[in-house]
């Protein structure tokens, strides 16, 4: 019997725009007093109307571009209708059949492509809190979060292990942060994950697929890994007992218990949810042209993969390139100092990445000390170089005839002269300058 987990991931990203998706309330809601950041629009009062936030839409498109998506020339918002106390209008404005972005991909270390089905825009709901008031079970609703812009990234079920899922999530996370469109702080709920898991089983009777399970309430990559691993085992076990296969109507939702490290069934719906999607009549559609999309593309900062590639190209070891990329301050420190006199890029990168250098203090000085790059006093070294050239006229003549390899001889002489203390790069450069000059 052979089995392959099939994992898809739905990631919701809370954007860091100043205002909400469809109104001008502040979007930064974390830790605020309840219901102090609402207006008729996000509170769903009678007569209120949505007006879309341009920056939020551009951020959604940027996310799509960085995920190699096609940006759809025609798109629109749709109403997704259901009743829930935290959904003030009784519908969520989202995107259904014409999202801003579709058909993208992300490439894992192994070279495997994880396809992205769509990247679309929607608004967040309010927050529910359960408590007991006057002996009755109640829920308390806060609408500060209602209407905050969200971007939903939906992958195809191309991941086949919890490891691949984790790598995918880390890539998405890094990308979001590099774009600067969200802090993606998972503890604050700014990046939310929902894996959908099932298993492909190949046995003597053929190929079978277990029913799809969507797992909610996961707020860390490690929890996602644990939940996925538990769920795969559980599904294999269930299949071996029941042989129930995936159908159009048996998808279920399970919650994740981080203490027990298990998933548990949430209320199964008797019938599939009918969201009665229809085009949002209060918001005209979008027609985007190539010029606009290209303009947005040009505003994209260098993305992690591009940064790492560039670092490797200039001599930095891949493992250090990754570390520098992940830490903005380290990356800046490296860039600031890599061109300086006497500094070798690869060495600098490794010292910063290994934290041998305190980037808050004088970096070249620390570098010198650590690499014992010796004498860098130009005036003194110039004297040494001039002296060696003067003492070796025939070698100079050889060099001039084209025997450039003799440079090594000259550098060796200088090192001997300075008891190995001279900085070889500087010496080299000085020789070259003088040799080309005379």
């Amino acid at each position, binding site marked *: 019997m052979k089995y392959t987990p099939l994992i898809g991931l739905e990631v919701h990203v809370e954007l860091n725009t100043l205002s909400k998706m469809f109104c001008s309330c502040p979007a930064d809601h974390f830790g605020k007093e309840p219901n102090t950041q609402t207006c008729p629009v996000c509170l*769903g*009062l*009678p*007569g209120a*109307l949505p007006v879309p936030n341009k920056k939020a839409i551009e951020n959604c498109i940027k996310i799509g571009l960085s995920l190699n998506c096609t940006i759809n020339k025609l798109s629109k918002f749709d109403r997704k209708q259901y*009743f829930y106390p935290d959904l*003030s209008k009784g519908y969520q404005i989202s995107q259904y059949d014409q999202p801003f972005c579709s058909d993208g991909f992300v490439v894992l270390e192994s070279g495997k492509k994880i396809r992205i089905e769509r990247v679309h825009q929607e608004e967040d709901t309010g927050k529910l809190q359960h408590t007991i008031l006057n002996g009755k079970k109640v829920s308390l*609703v806060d609408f500060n979060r209602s209407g905050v812009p969200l971007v939903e990234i939906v992958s195809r079920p191309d991941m086949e292990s919890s490891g691949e899922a984790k790598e995918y999530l880390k890539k998405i996370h890094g990308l979001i942060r590099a774009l600067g469109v969200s802090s993606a702080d998972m503890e604050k709920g700014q990046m939310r994950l929902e894996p959908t898991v099932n298993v492909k089983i190949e046995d003597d009777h053929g190929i079978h697929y277990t029913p799809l399970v969507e797992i909610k309430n996961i707020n860390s990559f490690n929890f996602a890994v644990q939940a996925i691993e538990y769920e795969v085992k559980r599904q294999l076990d269930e299949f071996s007992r029941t042989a129930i296969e995936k159908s159009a109507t048996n998808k279920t939702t399970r919650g994740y218990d981080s203490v027990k490290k298990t998933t548990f069934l949430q209320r199964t719906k008797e019938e599939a949810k*009918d969201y009665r999607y229809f085009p949002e009549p209060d918001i005209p559609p979008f027609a985007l042209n190539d010029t606009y999309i290209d303009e947005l593309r040009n505003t994209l900062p260098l993305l992690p993969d591009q940064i790492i590639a560039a670092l490797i190209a200039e001599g930095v070891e891949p493992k250090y390139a990754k570390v520098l990329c992940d830490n903005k301050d380290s990356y800046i420190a490296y860039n600031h100092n890599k061109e300086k006199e006497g500094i070798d890029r690869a060495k600098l990168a490794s010292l910063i990445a290994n934290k041998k250098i305190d980037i808050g203090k004088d970096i070249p000085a620390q570098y010198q000390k650590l690499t014992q790059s010796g004498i860098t006093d130009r005036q003194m070294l110039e004297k040494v170089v001039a002296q060696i050239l003067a003492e070796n006229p025939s070698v100079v003549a050889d060099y001039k005839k084209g025997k450039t390899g003799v440079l090594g001889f000259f550098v060796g002489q200088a090192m001997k002269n300075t008891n190995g203390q001279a900085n070889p790069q500087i010496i080299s450069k000085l020789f070259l300058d003088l040799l080309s000059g005379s």
Partner: protein
Amino acid sequence: MKDLHTLTIDEVHAGYRNGDFTCTDLVRHLLNRIEKYNPKLNIFLRLNPEVLDQAARIDREIKEKGINRPLLGIPFAIKDNFLTVGIETTASSNILKGFMPQYESSVTQKLLDAGAIFLGKTNMDSFAHGSSTETSDFGPTLNPWNIEYLPGGSSGGSAAAIAAGLATAALGSETAGSIRQPAAWCGVTGFKPTYGRAGRYGCIAMASSTDSPGPIARSVYDCAKILEVIAGQDKFDATTSPKPTDKYSACSGQGSLAGMKIGLIKEYLLPEMRDDVKKLIYDSADKLSSLGAQVEEVSLMDPKYSIGVYTVIQRSEVSSNLARFDGIRFGHERDRFNDENKRRIMLGTYTLSAGYYDAYYKKALAVRTKIINEFADLYKSYDALIGAVSPGPALKVGASKDQPMFGEMQDMLLEASSVAGLTSASVPCGFVDGLPIGLQITCDQFQEMKALSIAHCFQKNTDFVKFPDLNSL
């Protein structure tokens, strides 16, 4: 001197300027009439508690600055689906009983900024679900021409307020007929602007893709003056147009209709329409002809299809727009919706539901395209299209009971132009059995000036603008 309640906007301003009367005088006069006639007619649901204070402030302003705002001191009746801060707003529904809005609608804010004063909120079909004002949870409004009859709807209260002389001007809204039809049944002038010409922010939504706030008043000219104030892009309503507005009161400059080509819609002369009503429509066509227009019969899609299109679009959007009424943040529980509300919500839920969306909603939207294209073709050759507003005169109280499609049937001559977002004037064109009949003058999108000009010319050269004698009540 003329009775204060019979004055037009300009006449009121002239009176203020001449010192003939003050705003407080006018408001008191109207309040007295409301006190006398409202208990019977049930036009106003409630009055503005601050109206006299506001009138006093306006009088001070007039004294100090003169008439420096376009609607300064003009007393308005406001349909109860517009959110007005300080005045309870219910859309004539028990679900919103006691609702004190936390914000002002865009259009009423514009009226206030122009100096208008609100007398109170007028009765309507609850949530605008009707064409009679009979689905109001607070009793029907009665037609000031004959109290055995309905005023039409859903802006029945606003239209009746003008007919009964209980306000100088009124604000209504039209989803499909809700301004034009009550104006016709009450013998007053109503104007439906192009969809997106006036902002819907703060107007309790019925059908988001057709709702249009608009004026109901004593004359076309007064409607134009009000339109000047309420028209324009609304930054809180993404469906309003950035197209510049006009000085619509210039419509009064239209002396003759020479050069205009007008189409009389053949299919709107319904087989079941009374001969005396048809005659009034033909007479109106002749009148327009005599004013210089070239009038010809034109053909449009059978109105029965408009009923289907409008019913699906409206009820689908209604079902969604009323989802927010869950009693959590405002209002009462959903069991306070009345039968008509529930019917419409449920039908709309059905037409949007899985398995039926394509057959109903999508289909309706496609037929809508055909309707739009048909109008577009006609407007290449014609400046305006005319026809009756309503299949007949006002119907008796009780006519709408247990008629699941009453509203949509009554509005069949108005639904096509509504779903196409066109602009249209409803002007009185005669009487049958002592009840008024209205003529619609419908123009292409954003041709408000044209519609108003033709309507004004017609009105100026006819004598159909009359008001009932309420002493018989």
